[in-house]
């Protein structure tokens, strides 16, 4: 089986500093890392690889992005490929997806494509589904775990509010995994040294059979960045017209009305019985018998 993994090199969010006045980002302070979700995807691919299987790591990016491909080689990827148009300064999700899908198509279509479900840079989370669209493959997002079952993949997907869902998808497919799905292994020193000298193949637009016009997608007419704004949380404030004593009492109660509940006391045995009777009464536990 041939497994392809899409990787991206991006600034560590902890080093992204936004000027509070202008909203400008100081690029000189950024440190670059491999996207954690992509690292999890790479690890899952390496774990899945049988002796006759192949793992290819791909990225879209300038020459600096070679570093993450070298890291991928060092931990055990068999082949790597970088795709880039010289002179470009950035890519949008649609461009990234188109370049990756075209590169896979022109070199060799894998049996499975793994990628991170969301990057820590733009973080659109659209790239997996867009690649799937360009390859006409099925896609599954937000995967926390999966197993291979013949020509199917059984997956566990993260839902909102702590729930998960179980499902299956036919191969070939795009599987987008969460950062927590696996922790990338460490590379040995000899492998790192070897990867340091490896030649990284690069493909540009003409090799992919694309023209710059193909990379034009509808874009916003205006764009700006600013420090993050969070909706303020509403907290309780006491009524200003009340005398100080009342206000203090209100602050103490946090504005939450007192309940006219029952207060009981007695031996621990009786207390436990009271609690269980109350829980059963409200339907939280089943009554005995």
């Amino acid at each position, binding site marked *: 089986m041939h497994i392809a993994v899409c990787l991206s090199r991006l600034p560590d*969010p902890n080093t*992204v500093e*936004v000027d509070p006045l202008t*909203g400008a980002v100081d690029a000189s302070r950024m440190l670059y890392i491999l996207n954690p979700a992509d690292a999890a995807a790479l690890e899952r691919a390496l774990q899945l690889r049988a002796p006759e299987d192949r793992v290819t790591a791909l990225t879209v990016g300038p020459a600096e992005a070679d570093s993450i491909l070298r890291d991928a080689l060092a931990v055990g990827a068999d082949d790597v490929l970088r795709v880039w148009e010289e002179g470009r300064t950035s890519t949008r*999700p649609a461009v990234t997806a188109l370049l990756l899908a075209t590169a896979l198509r022109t070199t060799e279509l894998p049996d499975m494509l793994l990628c991170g*479900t969301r990057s820590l*840079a733009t*973080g*659109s*989370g*659209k790239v997996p*589904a867009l690649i*799937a*669209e360009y390859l006409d493959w*099925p*896609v*599954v*997002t*937000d995967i926390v775990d999966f197993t291979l079952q013949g020509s199917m993949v059984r997956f566990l997907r*993260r*839902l909102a*509010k*702590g*729930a998960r*869902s*179980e*499902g*299956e998808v*036919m191969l070939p*497919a795009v599987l987008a995994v969460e950062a927590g799905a696996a922790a990338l292994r460490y590379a040995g020193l000899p492998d790192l040294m070897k990867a340091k000298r490896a030649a990284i193949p690069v493909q540009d637009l003409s090799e992919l059979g694309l023209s710059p016009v193909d990379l034009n*997608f*509808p874009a916003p007419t*205006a764009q*700006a*960045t600013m*420090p*993050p*704004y969070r909706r303020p949380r*509403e907290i*309780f404030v006491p009524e200003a017209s009340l005398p100080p004593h009342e206000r203090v009492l209100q602050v*103490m109660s*946090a504005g939450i009305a007192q*309940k006219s*509940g029952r*207060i*009981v006391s*007695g031996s*621990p045995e009786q*207390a*436990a019985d*009271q*609690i*269980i009777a109350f829980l059963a009464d*409200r*339907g*939280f*536990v*089943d*009554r*005995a018998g």
Partner: protein
Amino acid sequence: MAPHVLVIAEVEQDRLMPATLECLAEARDMVSGRDGTVQVVLPGFGVTALAETLAEHGADRVTVVEHAALERFSADGWLQALEPVLRDVRPALILAPDSGYGRAWLPRLSARWRMPLVTNCSRAKVIEDGYPEAYRFSHDGRLHERLIWARGVRVGFMMAPDVRGVPAPKRGRQAVIEMVRPMLDPATFRDRTLRTLPPDPRTVDLVDAERIVSGGLGVGSADGMNLLRTLAETLGATLGGTRVAADRGWLPSDRFIGTTGKIVAPKLYIAFGVSGAGQHLAGIGGSQVVIAVNTDGTAPMLKMADLGVVGDLHAIVPILLKKLEALAQGSAAPAALADAVPERELAVAGR
């Protein structure tokens, strides 16, 4: 221009996801004062009853897309069922929750239509007479981006959940409800969901927990907290506590409740050794049923409780555990969470 805004609803376990209602509130704001309409597309099976809730939260028109194959999510199925519906509606703008489901099929639609699709939005609106505008988070929330499109461009917005909050519904508000029954062949769906697994009470975020057992300074030690952890597991509850307990290292710092911690709204809240300082009470206002156990009969926490017990938790909890285990052996596991108390009126609003 009278904008026609379309919201794509998401249903999980026969319930509307709060994120859908957040999108609906955002859509309502977009059309207010412009004489526009808000239409909701509700895919699923046997979900027509939810149309009423959508109307109360601001939908003018609800299009139920019903098919047995849409009972559980499939990206292929959603695309096959909804692309024709959306094409007929020709909405000016599309809003959907930014969820794993949405990100599996909406980007594909956006590629087919060459429609800009903005994910992770904190805010979406229309400026003046038809310039779509979005604010979105990037770089893991470290940066906010503001995007504006040319007038009249159809844009899809995927709204980050839990940003806006769900406003209170308007009782009795009506909407036009229509049914679409697409022709679908589930055999052509390459991906499908088999079942949904409920959240694990041990790991779920306190904010989403349905039952909480919490401990305060009266717990006395990490061992005391472990006792409560056992009780929480027996009751199918999540363990939380006060800031004091977390500061002493008895609890992880994402597990404390109050002004500076989590604001919770469980169906059942049991407090052990919690005196009830205002800072803690401010975090539990949404709780439905409260039980408090404290040695001090004058503790404010007891006045907040439906059942207040004056006594020592170290003596009570072991007996309680024994009795609960005896009960569990005598009958089945704890009663199903959903049946415990009547459905709460979406108390997620002020979170």
